[in-house]
């Protein structure tokens, strides 16, 4: 009886042991990598994730458009009179201007790689997905993901020059790659996209798909990559992938079959033209990064977070909105335009000529009296931000102006530069739109093209790279300047020295935190 009782009790204890699958659990609000990437729907979601990655790369740190403007001879650093000197450090290529800024581009470096990761995962999962019934989608999605990857790497390799190259996701500590390898991947990705995306002209494109990568975007970007690589590195073709004839052929294809055109009036390309604005995704937009007002502080990064950097320093004057006054426009750029060039007024806000009652000179560093007009927050007649009531209504993160990365005018000028038989007529078309009735023809030469590009594309993240691709010496001597600006209302001398630019070869600081994390595998760029 005693033994029976003991066994009964032991049995009861054993009951307390549950089955092994008691310990099996699964996340309810999370899908995992192994059960995702099965259907074309999954692929589309992943693709949208890649586009979202693109939307986040300029939300923090210094955005590419603002940095490109500051680095060039079109703008000074600007910023508030009491801010840190990070933008001066950029403008003057001089780390001693702001020694504590060791990670000015830190958030950008991280965001770019995070976006590249998303593209890499999707591209490498293409085989895992079951495409039956929608085989053509595979090529389309893969082309779009590869275009986005190429777009991201092209920004990175221009800014930092020496970057780790990843074509599949890994957590390993990868050393920086030879720029040639990076350009090779960029070229191959863009060629794949150009060859595999359907040739649907803009005029026939479903408006609900505006913002998606198109064949024309890939072909145009190839032209830009070709010109930059051959110029900056002094090579004769794009790493053996694309030669000059092919590059030109791509541009001609866009011109002939893309369905694009030049918007009538240059000023109407930009929202500051108010009721005359041609709108987002107009016929001149070949590729744009699209933003909207749904950003918030809970992790949604959908808006144009860098627009506020370019607003008038803490003062709104209808229709121009307040912001932080970065990238103040150089008088040099204003004077480069002739007075009958309609682009002057469309590109630059002149406090004096527009009679704006701007009173915050004392809060502005490197005040020049000129601000950029293409990308700027806007307000209504009462001085309220136009995003009031949209999303969280923040003038800082709810801005939704798209960034037009590639315009048809650029395609025309690139074709001219690449030696198109129609070079002169392309050149004339762009200039005619700018000068209207005061148009007089100019021969299409290398130097006239470059001058025209400056006037046409100010603040579109092109000038600095156009200078660099003419050679670091050209860039250095063009940007170097000693002039007077107003710091907090007082005149001050502003010096940018050519030697700083030459020392760095035009490249930017690699975030020091990443170098530390890599334990020395990554090396800082010279001059930083």
């Amino acid at each position: 009886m005693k033994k029976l009782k003991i066994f009964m009790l032991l049995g009861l204890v054993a009951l307390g042991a549950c089955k092994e699958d008691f310990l099996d659990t699964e996340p309810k609000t999370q899908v995992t990598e192994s059960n995702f990437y099965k259907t074309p729907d999954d692929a589309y979601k992943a693709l949208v994730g890649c586009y979202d990655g693109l939307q986040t790369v300029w939300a923090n740190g210094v955005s590419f458009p603002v940095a490109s403007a500051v680095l060039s001879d079109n703008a000074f650093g600007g910023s508030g009179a009491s801010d840190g000197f990070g933008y001066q450090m950029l403008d003057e290529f001089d780390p001693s201007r702001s020694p504590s800024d060791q990670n000015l581009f830190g958030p950008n470096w991280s965001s770019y790689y995070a976006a590249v990761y998303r593209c890499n995962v999707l591209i490498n999962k293409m085989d895992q997905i079951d495409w039956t019934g929608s085989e053509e989608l595979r090529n389309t999605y893969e082309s779009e993901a590869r275009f986005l990857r190429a777009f991201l790497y092209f920004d990175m390799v221009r800014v930092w020059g020496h970057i780790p190259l990843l074509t599949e996701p890994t957590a390993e500590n990868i050393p920086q790659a030879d720029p040639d390898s990076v350009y090779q991947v960029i070229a191959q990705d863009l060629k794949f996209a150009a060859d595999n995306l359907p040739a649907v002209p803009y005029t026939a494109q479903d408006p609900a798909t505006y913002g998606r990568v198109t064949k024309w975007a890939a072909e145009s970007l190839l032209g830009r990559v070709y010109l930059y690589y051959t110029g900056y590195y002094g090579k004769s073709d794009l790493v053996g992938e694309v030669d000059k004839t092919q590059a030109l052929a791509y541009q001609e294809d866009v011109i002939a079959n893309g369905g694009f055109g030049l918007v009538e009036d240059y000023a109407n390309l930009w929202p500051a033209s108010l009721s005359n604005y041609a709108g987002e995704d107009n016929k001149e937009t070949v590729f744009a990064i699209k933003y909207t007002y749904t950003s918030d502080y809970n992790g949604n990064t959908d808006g144009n977070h860098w627009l506020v950097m370019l607003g008038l320093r803490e003062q709104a004057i209808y229709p121009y909105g307040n912001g932080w006054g970065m990238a103040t426009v150089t008088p040099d750029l204003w004077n480069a335009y002739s007075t009958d060039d309609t682009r002057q007024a469309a590109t630059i806000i002149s406090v004096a000529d527009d009679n704006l009652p701007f009173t915050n000179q004392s809060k502005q560093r490197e005040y020049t009296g000129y601000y950029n007009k293409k990308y700027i927050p806007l307000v209504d007649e009462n001085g309220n931000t136009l995003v009031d009531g949209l999303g969280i209504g923040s003038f800082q993160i709810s801005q939704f102006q798209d960034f037009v990365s590639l315009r048809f005018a650029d395609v025309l000028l690139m074709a001219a530069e690449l030696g198109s038989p129609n070079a002169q007529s392309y050149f004339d078309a762009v200039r005619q739109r700018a000068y209207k009735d005061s148009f007089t023809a100019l021969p299409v030469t290398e130097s006239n093209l470059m001058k025209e590009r400056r006037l046409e594309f100010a603040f579109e993240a092109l000038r600095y790279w156009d200078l660099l691709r003419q050679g670091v010496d050209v860039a250095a001597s063009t940007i170097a300047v000693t002039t007077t600006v107003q710091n907090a209302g007082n005149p001050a001398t502003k010096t940018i020295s050519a030697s700083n630019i030459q020392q760095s070869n035009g490249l930017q600081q690699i975030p020091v935190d990443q170098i530390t994390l890599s334990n020395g595998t990554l090396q800082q760029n010279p001059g930083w």
Partner: protein
Amino acid sequence: MDGNFSLEAASDAVLVVSYIGFKTQEVPVNGRSQINIALATDQELLEEVVVVGYGTQKKKLVTGATTQVTGEEIQKQSTTNALQALQGQAPGVQISSTSGQPGEGMRVLIRGVGTIANSSPLYVVDGVLTDNIDYLNPADIASIDVLKDAASAAIYGSQAANGVVLITTRQGKSGQPAKITFDTYYGLQNVARKVDLLNAREYGAIMNEAAVNSGKAPYFTNDEINALGTGSDWIDQMFVDNAVTQNYSLGAQGGSENSTFSASLSYTSQEGIVGGKALSNYERYNARLNTEHSFYNDIIKLGEHLTFAYIQSNGIGVGNQYNNSLRSAFNTSPFVPMYDEEGNFYDNSNSNWYTGEANPYAQMVYSNQNRRNNQRLLGDIYLLVEPIKNLTFRTSLGLNYAAGESRSYSPTYNLSAYAYNNVTSASQSLNKGKSLIWDNLLTYNFSLNENHGFEVMVGTSAYRNDGTSIYGSNTDLVLPGLDYAWLSNATNKDGGSISLTGAPYNDDRRMSYFGRLNYNYKETYLLNATFRADGSSRFAQGHRWGYFPSVSAGWIVSNEAFASSQSWLSYFKLRASWGQVGNQNIDFFQYLAPVNFANLNYIFGTKEGVLASGAYPSRLGNESLQWETSEQTDLGFDSRFLNGNLDVTFDWYQKTTKDWLIRAPILATAGAEAPFINGGDVKNTGIELAVSYSNNIGDFNYTVGVNGSYNKNEVGQIPTADGVVHGNPNQLFDNAAEFYRAANGQPIGYFWGLQTNGIFQSEEEVNSYTSGEGKLVQLNAAPGDLRYVDQNGDGLISTLDNVNIGNPNPDYTFGITLSANYKAFDFSLLASGVAGNQIVESYRNQANMYANYSSEILDRWHGPGSSTTIPRVTEDNRNWTRFSDLYIHDGDFLRINNLTVGYDLGKMFKKKFISQVRIYASVQNLYTLTKYEGMDPEIGYTDSFASGIDLGYYPRPRTVMIGANIKF
């Protein structure tokens, strides 16, 4: 016990009266024919029992390192949180407040920091596992037993790597008359010490100097400086005086032959000294009922414990630099007025000094409009069956149910260019969850030949935890005000401003089997062995089970023949133990690579605000993730000398925790969040000593106790490429670089920065600071700047010159207890402290040239020879933007936690129905002896695995209180 007896003895004889559990007394007859003798209870009852895992054990037979603090000792400290009362009472246990705000938790470290992940111990209340005991009223606690070494904690296996704290709530006792108790206290709290900031005149002068030092013209003329006056004193504005704290507990306890019960009802409240009752407040209602009934002559016992707590609170932000409401008081200049002409908070957006700063008090008021309440129901029901003598089977089902809700309101306001809100918003959140634990234990005691005692136990335990939470927020409320901040009052219809989330808690499951063997020979030679197997759902299949053995032995030397004749030695036990325990407390599903769908929208097409949603795998997975294991060896002794008056306990331990579950910061090129990996280890070696002496001079009884511990913490091999686990940047001020890390051969969370070597007093000194090759090491330095040590001799000052400049882990922690009583008076004092640690003080946001300074800056360098410690001020804060020992301060302190004087009126009038009416007065946090100039050196606030960071720490108040303990 009213025993009468008679015996014959010579008139000069000495009677020796003794009884087990009572102190032996020698009473000389002295010719008396009637002698009344009252024996005093032995302070260390030899049959005293301590709580060990899944049971109890006679204290004299314990072979592990455990410390017990009784409920009375805890309650005597009159604290809101029982853990705060434990400070300084248990050697080897370092307890610090994470913030002085009422209701905030305590950081408990047992024998040093063992991991870079969660280092909190496991809490077990009456056998139910929980992760914090803040809900308990100290009056409900009968005892707290801390299991410090692996042998005593191994029975809890996979959750015991950081030690175990066992709490037993009060039980009734059979055969005792019913007792009713009423305890109450009422106290007023004030800030003990404030930091002195610059007033407007001093601030203006420093701003001028910073401008001049940066090559600009000064902002103010001398006349203007003189006219500046004092301006706003923000530290003063943030604190309130005489914040109230009070407690009322009514308890009843009793038992009959077959049933016992213990019940209580209590209310505790504590207002905060920062912000006052409206912004910082904590109230707790508790109800408890513990009962036990026996049937069939004690063969079957059925019992339950149940505690219910209802807690209402609201609080200000006490987190990192972006969530710390007090911090803005340190940074806002005195120029900002508190109110404008109409009596509203001043709107600084049009300031002609700096539009980016706002009234910090107003910011605190506007950003902390919230109400929170949560409920906890914790208890168990158990059945004990003893079918054969000494064979018991116990089964229990425990429940830990927690529910909470919170509500917040954000008003419209305009305080500065950055601090504004244009639309009212409200948020509501609800959560509830429960954990169930089902334990089965089978115990058998038997002895062979009278000398060999055995106790064998086998058991199982199954645990599961689940719950749900929901959150909503919306904007544009119909009526303004926290009272109307409900989602139904929000009129906004635009999806972009509405936030809605809801999710279940991740399922947490554990399954365990364990066993224990206790053996003693003549209660002199002791041996104990335990083994536990744990399976946890947090790891991938195939990697779920961990095995945790332990063994310990003891030798009661004082029972040996050679020792028992020594009269000065009443008790001496040598013990040694070794064991392995584990830590499975990581985030859920770390071994998977989850695909994230949130916040991944893009916009295609022509309509703004119409989004397409995306997905991507947001973290890399790691299938082979394993447990963290901790292996600990302990050697020690417990002893009593001098007739039981002197009590000494000593332990030496070595604890190695390895296979950390670390999320080593990953390179940006990986593109996703890092997975967890196993790697890295830390060794904590130390000594604990507790000495207490008690005696009496006639009716004056006194006890003096001192306890302390020494701990050395050293990290071993970290498996990442650079051998370092990096700390978080952006903690000390905007965009601050990393300043703490864990690295091989250093203590965890050590401060990593530049070492300074004085200040350059002149241009010559700058020019003479050259490297080996004659290069100027700091070529941009000017007189007044810090001279940094070029550790690697490369002629440059960079992060390569960063070294260990401070350690947040104290070398020593100690406590002192004094208590005395004389007739009806009683007195007690408890002091505790730490030594050998450093604190990083970073009040000022160095990215802001307009931030205010503490008055320490008046000692800055402003001319040759004016200072060798504090450098010159500049607008780019260049001497502060690189982390150096300028930020490091010694954090040693000794704090008088509690000083109490009491008087028992009940001893004066001996009424039958009242046995004690003790009234008392106490001061808490009477004085803190420290060199640290901040408001409170006990910085329990942690960021990841770093501690000792003062970002504007909400200090612990000084409380003056009166109270009463009444027993009927």
